[in-house]
């Protein structure tokens, strides 16, 4: 079984409102999956459910066949899921290097972290990420002083040093300039294959650039799934989300 992530009948009920309703999908190991859907479709809630921020009412989430539905956030993270938030979520008062050092520790326990040393393996991971995200010039700056794009890349980099097998990206290009968006697309493409990636995104140019398979959500349910051409031609998708103009 090569599924990285299996979501089966996932439902969350907020006092009668089902933000995610009996949602089922499987994502292959190394796949890059884009999730589309109009506002309120339940995309972010789906990520909340997978990463443990919100507890589901029913259904289950499996990571490489291991059930993770009922675990806490940090346990889910240790199981191998990394999450990037829509608003850059980094440690603003720490330096860029310290941000990466925090994310690189393979050791969750307080007592085992009462040491200075950083393993060779962790060091190497950090160096790879610095190169990938092009942050070598700002390693000593406070993360809060970075540009918006750099913050997003740093957060993305932290998920890689964290060694996340499955990465959830919530609108990674929100608020970015065109150049920044292109660079983000480059970074994500480089991660393809090494990590399994789930992206929520609205920017269609960006989606076309990176997408392999697309899942469309509507009112918490799965509406369609397939490659970009199939989705663009799908009648239900057009009706629900895209209007008569098609994807633009």
């Amino acid at each position, binding site marked *: 079984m090569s599924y990285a992530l299996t979501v089966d009948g996932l439902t969350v009920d907020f006092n009668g409102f089902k933000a995610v309703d009996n949602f089922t999908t499987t994502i292959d190991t190394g796949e890059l999956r884009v999730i589309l859907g109009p506002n309120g479709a339940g995309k972010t809630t789906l990520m909340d459910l997978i*990463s443990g921020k919100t507890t589901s009412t029913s259904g289950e989430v499996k990571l490489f066949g291991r059930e993770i539905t009922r675990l*806490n*956030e*940090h*346990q889910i*993270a*240790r199981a191998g899921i*990394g*999450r990037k*938030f829509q608003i850059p*979520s*980094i*440690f*603003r*008062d*720490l*330096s860029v290097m*310290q*941000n990466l*050092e*925090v*994310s690189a*520790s393979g*050791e*969750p*326990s*307080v*007592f085992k*972290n*009462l*040491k*200075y040393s*950083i393993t060779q393996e962790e060091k190497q991971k950090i160096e790879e990420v610095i190169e990938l995200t092009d942050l070598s010039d700002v390693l*000593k700056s*406070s993360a809060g002083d970075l540009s918006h794009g750099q913050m997003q890349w740093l*957060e993305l980099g*932290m998920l890689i040093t*964290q060694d996340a097998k499955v990465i959830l990206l919530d609108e990674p290009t929100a608020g970015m300039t065109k150049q920044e968006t292109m660079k983000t697309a480059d970074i994500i493409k480089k991660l393809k294959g090494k990590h399994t990636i789930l992206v929520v995104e609205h920017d269609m140019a960006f989606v076309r650039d990176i997408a392999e398979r697309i899942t469309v959500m509507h009112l918490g349910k799965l509406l369609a799934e397939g490659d970009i051409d199939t989705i663009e031609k799908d009648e239900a998708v057009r009706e629900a989300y895209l209007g008569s103009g098609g994807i633009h």
Partner: protein
Amino acid sequence: MVENRSLGQKLDWAVYITFFVVVLCLPLLTDDVFWLNRISKFLVFGLLGLAIALSWGYAGVLNLGQGLFFGLGAYMFAMSLKLKSTTSLQQGSDKPVPDFMVWNAEPGSPTELCCIVPGSWLWLPFQSQTFGMIMAIVLPIVVAFVVGSAIFRLRVSGVYVAIITLALVLLVRLLIIDAQPITNGFNGLTDLGWLELFGIEFDPYMYETYYLVAVSCCLIMLAARWLVSTRAGLILQSTRDDANRSRYLGYDVAAYQIFFFVVSAAIAGFAGMLYVVAAEFASPTFLDISFSISMVVWAAVGGRSSLIGAVIGAVLINSIEASVSETEIFKEAWKLIIGVIFIFVVLLLPRGIAGVARDFARWLEDKHLLSTSKRG
């Protein structure tokens, strides 16, 4: 600490070493033992500033009830010293009995620690000085662990932590005052014996006592500094900046918060014990709100994100307070002055004295870089 590791870190160490040298050499400069005793109390307050900096500056947890742990530590150890005082041995029993228990006892009660007043049996193990010393650390740790677990597992944060800790210190203060027969209520525990360690009796007005306090302070400062510079310390700071991010990186944030909350409480408990050695009393005033808030002011003025800054802030403010309160006008106005200083620091120097020093070091380094690059 982030900004410039080279010069900033050197400056940091220079400050630590200077501080240690000054503190350890002070007795060589004076034979005024009363003055030395006063300084040793200020050093104890320095530890309280450090405990606040650890929880507030590094964990982002503002504890307005640090006096609780200080008070518990002080009372636990004072109980042992009370039983060692000569008056406790003169109450008509061959075993020590605190004088105030005799005053509070019902007529006809046996003059024995087990049953002179209800609950006095709690004092029995404190006949051992070692037991008192251990409890002075262990009780704050246990209380902090229970309180911290409740607060942090429920993800209470920000001002609510401040309110809970504030309410807690008041509650315990009331309990202590209310348990008059076994705590001597408002009057606290006075007329204590001396700490006896390695065959030395620590008279508070002796050089040995000053050194006991000073060396303990220096060691704790080093230990705390080591603690925050480990990866656990770094992860703790990350939870202060963005607890959710730390969670999604796989850290059990509450565990880190509880651990450092407990360490901070242990330091405060230890400080309470040292204070009893130097000041020879324990009283419910240790659990006054104003005292706990003073600690926060010391840490804020010194710089809450710097451990040594907070220590220096505490020593400095207390030294100023001690000298100005000898003048009649300032004595009344002191609370006002300290209030104004606090507002001034919060508004203009949010990182306190330590922040100013770091900015200065950074400025020096920039200047240095500039001049070398020009030359090059």
